[in-house]
């Protein structure tokens, strides 16, 4: 029985939806690519102009639709192209995670990370780390939840 579970877990490939800001994390992802850094193909990237432009509803849609993880990537504090978008994103993500936790969801499926345009290696490492963390959690139960 334990072996079956292990086999299922090793077969399970988490799907992670990433909302990345154009100026820092997306460019960081680009750098990871041009630097030929390897990272798991479990991530689906959506480029936005700013982490502050991530409507929490996008994250909810992904989570309720069955995404195993959602990554929000923005510029380091103080480096926002629009001065303060990432500070506002930080508050929004904190609020969203608090709501999800209170509503009985696993809020640790949602990650916020500051990754700059020069941090290709940090981007690749974050994707590796998150893929393994979501693999360890197993599939998002929302994948089967048709009645929500």
């Amino acid at each position, binding site marked *: 029985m334990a072996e079956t579970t292990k086999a299922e877990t090793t077969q399970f490939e988490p799907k992670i939806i990433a909302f990345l800001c154009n100026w820092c994390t997306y460019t960081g992802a680009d750098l990871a690519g041009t630097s030929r850094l390897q990272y798991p193909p479990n991530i689906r990237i959506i480029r936005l102009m700013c982490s502050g432009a991530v409507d929490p509803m996008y994250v909810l849609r992904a989570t309720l639709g069955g995404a195993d993880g959602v990554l929000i990537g*923005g510029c380091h504090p103080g480096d926002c192209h629009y001065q303060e978008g*990432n500070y506002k994103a*930080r508050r929004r993500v904190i609020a969203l995670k608090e*709501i999800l936790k*209170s509503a*009985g969801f696993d809020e640790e499926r949602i990650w916020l990370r500051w990754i700059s345009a020069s941090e290709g290696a940090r981007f690749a490492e974050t994707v590796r780390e998150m893929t393994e963390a979501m693999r360890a959690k197993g599939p998002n139960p929302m994948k089967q939840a048709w*009645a*929500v």
Partner: protein
Amino acid sequence: MKISLSVENRNPLATLQNFLKSFLERQIVDVLLTPMRTPSNSVTPALVSDPALLNRADPLAPVLPVNAATWAGKISLRQPRPKAAAVLRPCEARALVELTKMAQASLDDLLVIALDCAGTYTPATFLHKQMQNDHPLWVDLYAAVCQKPESPNLELRPACQICEQPVFESAPIRLCLFESDLERTLIVEVRDEIAQKLNLTGEATNGRSPEIEAFIAARTQARDRAFAEIRARLEGEEGIAGVFAACIRCHNCMTVCPICYCKTCVFRSHVFDHDPMKYVQWARQKGAQRMPPDTMLFHLTRQNHMALSCVGCGMCTDACPSELPVGLVFRAVAQRLQHTFDYLPGRKVEEPLPLITFRADEWTEVGE
């Protein structure tokens, strides 16, 4: 200052009506928004311009058909606007403060007359009880606060049973019903400059009475019990999807919510006008798709949009045709959220809404 108005024939309503009349007669305001008795004897907020009609005013009637903050907002928002006063219960006054922050109301030309609230019935219960009783319903309610503050009234609206904020202290005018011996006196707390215009004199303001403290403590206990129960459901097997399983997506909760002010809600917009194959795609992904879809998305998004400003008025619970504990879920979620941001809706109009502001030096560990 606190002013003691004398009550004759054990009828404080007449005293209160005269007090309200003086605002119009002395031209302190042009219009007054207050609960009124309709000709068929139901109660509704109305905007009154004729002082003679204030003999139909009945702010003491323990019923909350709508949260009147919405309407206080509508009459105060844009120029040209009247000088107005609004008689509001504490949850309505708190909602008005939040609407002001959201630029949906203005307190510049609006005087809030807040009344101490012992709780309200739904319109249906109110009409039913009114027919059964030969004395005004508020008599028992306010007597209970002072004589047995700890005993719950299970006929009140669910939101009122767990309301621990029955007093709105920052109003320029407050009807101190808890402190009044209503058969003899009506105590009102009035800012000095307004008292002067009304030609009233009184004593300096003192603190809360021990009866109110006991009442608030009992309500707080009831609230915490209700929170514990709903949290066990939300965090247990059932989850929020289970608690809201019978939701029919009528949007009543959103329509009656004083905080949900958007003229075009995203859930009524083209964003949710999907192509046929989109539904099929969802059905294929999960094997089936509930219709209408997006029920959880609706409730969680709404929590995201307004839980920080949720004043706990409970209009949503009253409006739910499936009798879901909408307001209780919102308050339970909101309490933690408000605690996280050290925010209390309705506390102060100067406090910014948490999601439109930030500090660079907060939550520095997040994102690293």
